[in-house]
């Protein structure tokens, strides 16, 4: 089959009618649904060639794929074979394969039992009836930065691929996957907080709207974990997501303003842009914590731009990370910082003794822009 044929095969009746309209300027009154004869000699589930059902060879040497056996079930299959044997006398009659009752394929139908022949199930998909393949929904930094638990002290680890990308699966599937995912999040929140109320007027119909809503509910889930169970790790992940998103947005705005001559630097371009991004992101974080009812202060585990003292030496010194959540410090920065940077060493030497420092940089600066530095071992 040529490439051209394979493309036309997937055109819907509406698409064909629209093509016709583009070519001729005439609207087809009622586009007849396209029908294509399905080749019954192929297993509809995996596209592999098989023997014609009902034919003599199909009974002589029945070949049934393991996948089909598991999908249909031994009992049902044996019934089908039995029926086929009964009809073997009439050679013209054949039993359509399961899920293909008329042996006719209608491209405009979206039937769940049709699968592309090249379809292969994702071997990494979670097993169990939890709504399909996993979306990127890590709840601990160990999953955001793979390998962190086994990393040597002072290691720098970058984010897992597409950790913030919820649109990994094909667009056709994304909306339904996300809808399932949102329902799962709401269920998780209500397990922790039965009084939880959704602050939304309705369910969005676009992927963008659903993404925004999903982000908000993930934050609600993290907040519920923290406030009700004192489990702070999901909050570390969600705040990192939030910081990354806001850093990217504010950086883009800042660069645009500078290029338009609306951002006047006091010292340099980098200083002007970096300073604006830092301050804007910190203010966004304050609004976020207020919206989540999470207190930030020097005595609690969550702080924004607080002095973190190092009282170990004779001179009391301090460093100021942009944010801190329990044993993790966050620093929004345009420049790459390492353990060789005095500021980072200062964070690790501070009394709150962080296990790691997360450097959040705009993703526009390139791959691996955001990374984590683990605590150096002595």
């Amino acid at each position: 089959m040529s490439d051209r044929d394979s493309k036309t095969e997937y055109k819907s009746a509406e698409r064909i009618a629209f093509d016709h309209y583009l070519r001729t300027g005439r609207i087809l009154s009622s586009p007849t649904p396209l029908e294509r004869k399905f080749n019954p000699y192929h297993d509809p589930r995996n596209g592999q060639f098989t023997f014609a059902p009902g034919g003599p060879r199909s009974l002589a040497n029945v070949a049934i794929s393991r996948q089909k056996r598991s999908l249909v079930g031994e009992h049902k299959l044996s019934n089908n074979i039995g029926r086929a044997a009964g009809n073997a006398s009439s050679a013209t009659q054949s039993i359509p394969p399961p899920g293909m009752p008329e042996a006719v394929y209608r491209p405009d139908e979206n039937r769940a039992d049709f699968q592309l022949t090249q379809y292969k199930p994702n071997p990494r998909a979670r097993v169990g009836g939890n709504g399909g393949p996993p979306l990127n929904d890590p709840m601990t930094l160990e999953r955001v930065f793979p390998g962190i638990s086994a990393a040597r002290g002072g290691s720098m680890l970058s984010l897992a691929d597409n950790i913030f990308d919820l649109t990994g699966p094909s667009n056709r599937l994304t909306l339904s996957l996300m809808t399932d995912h949102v329902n799962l999040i709401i269920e998780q929140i209500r397990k922790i907080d039965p009084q939880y109320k959704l602050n939304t007027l309705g369910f969005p119909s676009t992927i963008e709207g659903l993404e925004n809503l999903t982000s908000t509910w993930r934050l609600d889930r993290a907040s519920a974990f923290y406030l009700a169970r004192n489990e702070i790790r999901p909050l570390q992940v969600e705040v990192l997501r939030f910081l990354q998103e806001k850093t990217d947005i504010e950086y883009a705005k800042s660069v645009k303003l500078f290029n338009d001559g609306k951002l006047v630097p006091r010292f340099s371009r980098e200083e002007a842009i970096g300073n604006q991004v830092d301050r804007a992101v910190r203010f966004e974080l304050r609004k976020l914590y207020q919206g989540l009812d999470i207190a930030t202060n020097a005595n609690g585990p969550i702080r924004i731009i607080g002095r973190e003292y190092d009282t170990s030496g004779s001179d009391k010194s301090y460093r100021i990370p942009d944010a801190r959540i329990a044993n993790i410090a966050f620093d929004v920065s345009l420049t790459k910082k390492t353990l060789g940077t005095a500021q980072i060493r200062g964070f690790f030497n501070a009394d709150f003794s962080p296990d790691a420092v997360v450097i959040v940089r705009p993703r526009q600066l390139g791959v691996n822009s955001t990374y984590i530095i683990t605590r150096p071992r002595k």
Partner: protein
Amino acid sequence: MKPYAPYIPLNISEIMDLLGWMMLNAPKFEDDTGYFAGQNIETEFLALNGGLSNIRKKVGEEAYQALITISDKMREHFEADPDDVGAGGREGRTCIREMEDILIASARRKSR
């Protein structure tokens, strides 16, 4: 999350952060990410003026009055140029710089 309510800064440092955010998000101050639905010029000037009121004693009456005057002027500029294409946006951002200078000077005076 709770329905959006503006965050009122508590000290000079937090007002500086708010002004930094205003610089980038002027003149409409609307949220395009869905976290803070309902955020707009009204809510953010409420936050700014509330924050100024919180530091009134710290900065002194004269500086406070100057800051409030500039804040009102800034809002007028931004409201006059909602698409940020004319002089309003530029003038409004100049007001932000003026406020920052006053706040930095006040913080320095206090630390001496």
